[in-house]
């Protein structure tokens, strides 16, 4: 019954394998831009050392030039370096907020959906309540209570934004709850905690991460707004928000560079993070 087929007899019957398309171009661009921005934020202040704090009132309010690519501020500090460290602070705060929101949101969302019944209903009312209040207002209240501390800023953002993650994770767990493999797990004797750990949380990790990445631009804006309002970091500390606040007065005096560069950077960072988030989303959707 065996007859060997010579390899030479074989030929293609249709088109050859196609290379993967350029669908990922947007995501790759987003990642590239983010890497660029991150390196800017990390390395420039490192290399500059203490130069950023140097005040030199003789070089105050200089427009962009070879010596000062982004110009100088009212105290003569080089804005290229100052913006880099400002970005570093803003990004750090935003990432910490996002992580805190993710941790809180995933846990509460998953447990609420897993327990179901009255517990779930109560938690959802709480979530609705938090969402009903304009989160900036809530954030301002929290920060005003604990003036200027970075922990307060992080808390104000995390406590108002975990609900977004919780909602998405809860919806995912609700759909997982009725899957047959979850029923099988219970029939095999798994406790609710084991099912949570082994099936619900891993199942929602992808969605949770995506929701958190989508939070990042918002967190950056939130921090900038708080600092802009004077409720966040002290004006001496550089962050995107404080720099934008300074720019308010600078622009009046003709210093357009004080506004343009921070604003542009805020916009580009937001777009890049959103592009990465979208790329992550389409990858996780594909896997389901």
């Amino acid at each position: 019954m065996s007859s060997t087929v010579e390899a030479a007899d074989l030929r293609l019957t249709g088109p050859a394998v196609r290379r993967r398309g350029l669908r990922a171009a947007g995501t790759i661009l987003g990642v590239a831009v983010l890497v660029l921005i991150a390196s800017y934020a990390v390395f420039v202040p490192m290399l500059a050392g203490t130069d950023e704090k140097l005040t030199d009132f003789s070089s105050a309010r200089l427009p962009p030039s070879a010596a000062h690519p982004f110009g100088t501020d009212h105290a003569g500090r080089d804005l290229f370096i100052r913006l880099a460290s400002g970005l570093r602070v803003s990004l750090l705060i935003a990432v910490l907020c996002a992580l805190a929101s993710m941790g809180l949101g995933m846990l509460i969302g998953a447990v609420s959906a897993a327990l179901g019944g009255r517990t779930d209903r109560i938690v959802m009312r709480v979530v609705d309540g938090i969402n009903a209040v304009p989160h900036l207002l809530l954030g301002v209240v929290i920060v005003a209570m604990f003036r200027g501390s970075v922990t307060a800023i992080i808390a104000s953002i995390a406590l108002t934004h975990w609900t977004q993650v919780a909602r998405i994770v809860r919806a995912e767990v609700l759909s997982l709850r009725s899957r047959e493999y979850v029923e099988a797990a219970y029939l095999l004797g798994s406790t609710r905690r084991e099912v949570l750990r082994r099936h619900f949380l891993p199942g929602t990790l992808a969605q949770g991460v995506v929701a958190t990445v989508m939070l990042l631009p918002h967190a950056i804006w939130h921090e900038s707004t708080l600092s802009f309002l004077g409720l966040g970091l002290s004006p001496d500390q550089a962050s995107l928000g404080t720099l934008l606040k300074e720019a308010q007065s600078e622009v009046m005096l003709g210093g357009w560079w004080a506004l343009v560069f921070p604003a542009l950077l805020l916009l580009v960072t937001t777009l890049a993070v959103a592009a990465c988030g979208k790329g992550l989303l389409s990858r996780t959707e594909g896997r389901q």
Partner: protein
Amino acid sequence: MNSIAIRAEGHTVRIPSRTRRGTGWVHAATDVAFSAYRGGVHALVGESGCGKTTFASAVLGMLPPGTMAAGELDYVDASGTRTPLTAGRDGAARAAKLRGRVIGYVPQSPATYLTPVRTVGSQLGETVRELGGARNPQDLLAQVNLEAQALDAFPHELSGGMLQRAAIAFALAGGPDVLLADEPVSGLDPDLAQLTLGLLRRVADAGAAVVLITHDLQRLADSGTADEVSVMYAGRIVESGPASEVLELPSHPYSRDLLAALPANGLQAMPGTSPELTDLPPEYSYAERLAAAAEAGYAR
């Protein structure tokens, strides 16, 4: 004398496979000889994963990109003109022209086959228009024993059996010369299965060549639908002949063991399991499976 419609000679298919564990070639078909005649039902049977569905994909020109083939697989029209379906890069393109119009296909799970947000009638009407079919939707539904009311129904409003019949109506929309049915009765109640197979028989009696792909030997044997049966194992045809012979007095040990597994014949478990088709050694045969099972202590 009925004319041949689908002809395979030395038909061999190798599909590239790229998995976590590395690359390889799936030996989906090796040296397959097969002929389907007009006016008859030729059943292709075997365990799941033996290459039956790939054979259908080859006839329809729907093999994955990068697939290599050898041998001949042709569609032969009434006047005897051959259209090779797997020869060269445009083999798939040639098959694509025949798809739907000359070679109809009834898929395995009809429920997912239809668009859920449109009525059956509108989808069937569109299909007839696109394929330039001669019959209108009402006639097609009548041919498959569905009332005209089904035209106004949405797919979720039809039962499983009705959906299966609707799928056959869709396949007949272009007035095809050949009908490929892939597991058309899998999971259906015995009565519905009988009805569906009867339908396919009538399609063959009307002049088309019907190729019935199934692993359900019991239904096949009970319904007496098939004229010829070919048994496939690990991508090779191990036995082929008139249905009455193959299903009642098979000569190949694989066919015999396959039939012995049927409830009516005692539900006797087969030795071992069917092999992975990836990078299958060329000398592989059923004897090897029997030997491996004997070593593992399998006893009848």
